[in-house]
């Protein structure tokens, strides 16, 4: 390199420093993309036809019709909301012992392994699949939805709670233990106060998720506003569908804002 040449600063490459790796990864990505895009079959005539419907849906979204299907919407909404509340409460109650059992600093190894596998099973099965099975077992309606959401809540909450318990300040637990406290007293006086704010925050977050999920599992027959939405789209009543979607969005927004507010207040 000539030292008297004008030195020009070059921006270092992003992330992958070695040029062979970089170009190798780029090449693989391009090959994959070409294969993927070429295997997508699109019926453009159908898409073009659909644009008119898309426009009607957009109109339905901008001028929603709340009134003509109000009874269906209301009953779907009530099912969704009650399902959300009950499943969150039951799910959180079940997840507390499992979460404590899945924290390595509180539970002996056999209990730990059992609780961890419960969490793994609950987390790896998707809500929709669980809902399909529960609907087949318990019949159509919000009860199957309630069970599905509870099942999903347990895995979610127990995992986060267990991680939280493992991250607590051991000093406090040791201090309480040094007073001669029993295991229950350690949990009550050293662990619970440390994890409670986050537990409440997570429960509210889960409430929010459960409402969103409750709007989906209705598609496979587990009750809630999803069933109403499915019907209205099947009937091409886009203005009612738009109204339902707007209701879902507004409730989720409200839940998000209020849970953020409550979380700030708790901490």
């Amino acid at each position, binding site marked *: 390199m000539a030292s008297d040449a004008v030195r020009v600063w070059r921006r270092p490459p992003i992330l992958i420093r070695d040029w062979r790796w970089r170009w190798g990864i780029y090449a693989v990505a391009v090959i994959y993309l070409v294969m993927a895009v070429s295997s997508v079959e699109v019926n453009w005539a159908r898409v073009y036809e659909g644009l008119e419907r898309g426009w009607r849906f957009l109109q339905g979204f901008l001028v929603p019709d709340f009134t003509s299907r109000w009874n269906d919407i209301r009953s779907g909404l009530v099912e969704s909301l009650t399902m959300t509340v*009950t499943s969150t409460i039951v799910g959180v109650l079940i997840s507390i012992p499992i979460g404590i059992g899945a924290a390595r600093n509180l539970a002996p190894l056999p209990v730990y392994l059992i609780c961890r596998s419960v969490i793994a099973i609950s987390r*790896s099965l998707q809500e929709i699949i669980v809902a399909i099975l529960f609907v*087949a077992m*318990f019949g159509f*309606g919000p009860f199957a939805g309630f069970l599905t959401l509870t099942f999903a809540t347990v895995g979610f909450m127990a995992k986060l709670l267990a991680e939280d318990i493992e991250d607590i300040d051991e000093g406090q637990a040791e201090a309480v233990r040094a007073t001669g406290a029993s295991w229950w007293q350690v949990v009550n006086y050293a662990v619970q106060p440390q994890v409670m704010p986050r537990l409440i925050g997570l429960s509210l977050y889960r409430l929010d998720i459960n409402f*969103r999920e409750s709007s989906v599992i209705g598609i496979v027959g587990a009750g809630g506003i999803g069933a109403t939405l499915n019907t209205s789209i099947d009937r091409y009543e886009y203005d009612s569908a738009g109204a339902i979607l707007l209701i879902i969005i507004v409730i989720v927004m409200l839940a998000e804002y209020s849970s953020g507010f409550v979380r700030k207040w708790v901490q």
Partner: protein
Amino acid sequence: MPVQQGSVAIWRKRTNAAQWTLWAGWFALAILFVYSWQVMTQDTIWAFVLDAPEQAADLGGRMFPPRWSYMDRLWWPLWDTLNIATLGTMLGILFAVPVAFAAARNTTPSLYFVRPVALFIIVSSRSINSLIWALLLVAIIGPGILAGIVAIGLRSIGFVAKLLYEAIEEIDQGQVEAVSATGASRAQIIDYAIVPQVLPAFFGISVFRWDINIRESTILGLVGAGGIGLQLQASLNTLAWPQVTLIFVVILATVVVSEWVSAKVREAIS
């Protein structure tokens, strides 16, 4: 509960008033639960619920053993599923990046007009599940992979944009000042001071979302949006439970593998 010595309370956690407020709160929650439970179960047919163990046993008997030979017909839908997730993620990212820059306080062109619009896009995209997007899109542009890709893309916009704009808001402002002190334009500031700082977060978020999208794209077929879910729907409709079991196993395996890949990639990035 006070800590007691004999019958004398020597220490208690809360004052009486705080204790009572707390109890009132829990009581209200219990009432809400009971009320919700009653409203929810008023149409429940308990006979169906009570015979659930028999139904479960019956279902279990039908589901096992899985029909392994059906696997031959699942490879192509599996490839479609992978494509829906990957192309959908890319589509989502394409729209999410400008939305994120419009939503972040320190890069938004206008705090009072553009930012609320961007936030609204994020919230609407996030609050509607990809299955619902797929339901709509199948009605609009017809069944097929394209509906699935667009559905995944629309759902991903909110997720990626939200996490990305939070990352943009948390950058080190010193670097921005340093670059702007050299006389850089607005675009150059974004290019040289902001992008390098959020790039690792951006790749992490994208891979994370890709992993979630694999999970979601496996079921999009239930409403006709392509992928392995189409096979699931067909098998469910014909009550071919051994095939359903095999599809569940395949979905589970796909999800586990994609989670592993995403964890490895994120580990390598950070």
